[in-house]
């Protein structure tokens, strides 16, 4: 092949390569821009509630409420009526291992460095109640010198940035516009990634139904103007529930009149269960 014959071919090839480089740059920029755009979408901070106005009934508009929950640990007496009411109300499996809400007991014994912690599901407490269907705290510290002791009710924190919602592969778990984290049991595949992701241990897996489950703040009740079952039965008012959009609601007053804190704030989940009267060991 003569030299002059190759020249146009080379030029054409160079031209092609230049165009290719240009195209690659444009494509790269587009991909880069798309990536930048996608980052906020997948980050834990930007969970947007799904669209829609009126849910679940015609009479209830979920854009008009922002539910919140308060726990005054100084009031809790550990009677566990809340736990039993929740199990009854929400068909939670009748065993000592799966709960939508539970109560923790913290006991400082004189001379001991570590706090002793148990909940109603502790084998000693189950033995005291005599059944996995009824719950009570065994009086196991009656002979000990107790320095300080208190109860802490726990439940799903209905986080503003819920880890469970972030990791759910199908979107079966989601955050409603009124600030409640729910699970669509008809869509959950039962992978339990959400159970692993929740920093608070609020979720469990319902083996019989093959789906994850957790506290819904009794969504079926609150959307009808009722209180969650646990709040309803609490004899001492340790559990407070209400609409944060209503400045005179129990929860708004609870948050306004107390120095409240949330569990594991370092997780960045921004819980919506607010605590009063818990100690440094509580997490």
């Amino acid at each position, binding site marked *: 092949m003569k030299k002059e014959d190759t020249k146009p071919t080379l030029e054409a090839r160079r031209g092609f390569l230049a165009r290719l480089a240009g195209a690659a740059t444009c494509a790269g920029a587009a991909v880069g821009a798309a990536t930048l755009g996608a980052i906020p979408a997948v980050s834990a901070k930007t969970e947007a509630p799904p669209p829609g106005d009126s849910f679940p009934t015609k009479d209830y508009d979920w854009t008009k409420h922002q539910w919140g929950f308060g726990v005054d640990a100084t009031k809790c007496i550990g009677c566990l009526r809340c736990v039993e009411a929740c199990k009854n109300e929400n068909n939670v499996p009748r065993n000592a*291992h799966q709960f939508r809400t539970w109560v923790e007991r913290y006991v400082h014994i004189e001379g001991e460095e570590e706090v002793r912690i148990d909940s109603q599901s502790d084998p000693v407490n189950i033995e005291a109640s005599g059944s996995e269907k009824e719950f009570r705290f065994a009086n196991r510290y009656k002979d000990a010198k107790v320095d300080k002791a208190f109860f802490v009710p726990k439940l799903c924190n209905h986080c503003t940035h819920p880890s469970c919602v972030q990791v759910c592969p199908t979107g079966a778990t989601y955050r409603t516009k009124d600030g409640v984290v729910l699970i669509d049991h008809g*869509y959950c595949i039962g992978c339990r990634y959400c159970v692993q992701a929740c*920093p608070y241990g609020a979720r469990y897996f319902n*083996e019989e139904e093959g789906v994850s489950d957790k506290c819904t703040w009794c969504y079926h009740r609150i959307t009808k103007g009722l209180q969650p079952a646990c709040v309803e039965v609490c004899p001492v008012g340790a559990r407070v529930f209400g609409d944060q959009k209503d400045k005179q609601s129990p929860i708004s007053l609870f948050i306004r009149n107390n120095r409240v804190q949330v569990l594991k704030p370092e997780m960045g989940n921004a819980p919506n269960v607010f605590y009063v009267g818990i100690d440094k060991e509580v997490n």
Partner: protein
Amino acid sequence: MQPIIDFVPYTGWVYPNETVFEWSILIAVYPYLTGLVAGAFTVSSLYQVFGFERLKPVAHMALLTSLSFMIFVPTPLLLHLGHPERAFNSTITPHLTSAMAMFGFFASFYVALLILEGWFAYRPFIVDQAQKRTGLLGKFYGLLTLGSHDVSENAMRYDRKWIFALAVIGIPAAHGLHGYVGFMYGSLKSREWWSSDLMPVIFLFSAIISGVSLLAVLYVVSCKLRKIAVDLGCLKGLAYTIWAFIMVALVLEGLEFANIVYKGREGVDMIMQYVTGPLLIPYFILQFAVGAIAPFLWLSYMIWRGTSGRALVIGVTTCACLVLFSVFMMRWNVVIGGQEISKTGKGLMSYQLHWGGKEGALVAVLLTMAPLGVLYILTRLFPPWSDDATHAHS
């Protein structure tokens, strides 16, 4: 009958819901299989892309191994799901913020790539068989030619370009797939044992050593079965690869552990209690000492002394088996170990492994071994042996 819910014994303070162990041994098998896929593909790429000629005898087997194991990657997950019939929900309507939702896409893309690369690599063989054979097998190969019988030098050159390109794309695809598996654990902030930026990289390097080791074992076994001599150059090449990557894997794991201990965040006391207690044997003894440091030292010795012949074959095969075991222990220690440390940072659970049941040890062993059965069938249909006259082109 097995209880429907697996309650586990625990010590200290754990959340009530944590007393049910959610991710079983099958979830440890899943990253193990994925790792073998990525590692085996690495060997194929070292030959196809980086021109490691001495790995030629295992290059095609690497592709077949990768494919055989990839077919089984979703099985432990499907067996674990509460509603396996809804598994495709995560692909049809993926939740874009979920690391797990992307799995279907990554995996499908990678399987397609593997099949395509395999097809190009085996095309001359398929065409040859389609022309030679009659009957059902002839029809089978005929179908696989996809109507293209052109095996001229020009066509081969074109095929080689494709193989190269697919192998190049395959490197990020295979390693991305596995790095992503590491991300699934590393991105969970709920557990200190998992929540680490290094997790994806650690998964990746352990994947590479496991895949290369698997190929070393398979290669030696295949030579014994076919009654031919082991190509010592090839085996040495595999040994060097394991040696180099095991070093990185060890350093990364060491760094990871040092980070947890040195930062000493909340819950570190429980982690220390755990690793020096229940995890002492599975973590320090089995995963590190027996499975990683011993083969590393042995391989170093063999490289230093220039060991050859039977001693090399036995040495490398044993080391490879140890590495395969070590990497499984790593998966176990991450998946099971992570769940044994309570989210409260104040208690430990103890996983009870059952033999039977849907998520028992027997199923786990079967799922890990099943790909070997598929590989056996594939090697009969598509012989990967480079010494064979019917071998596919390079």
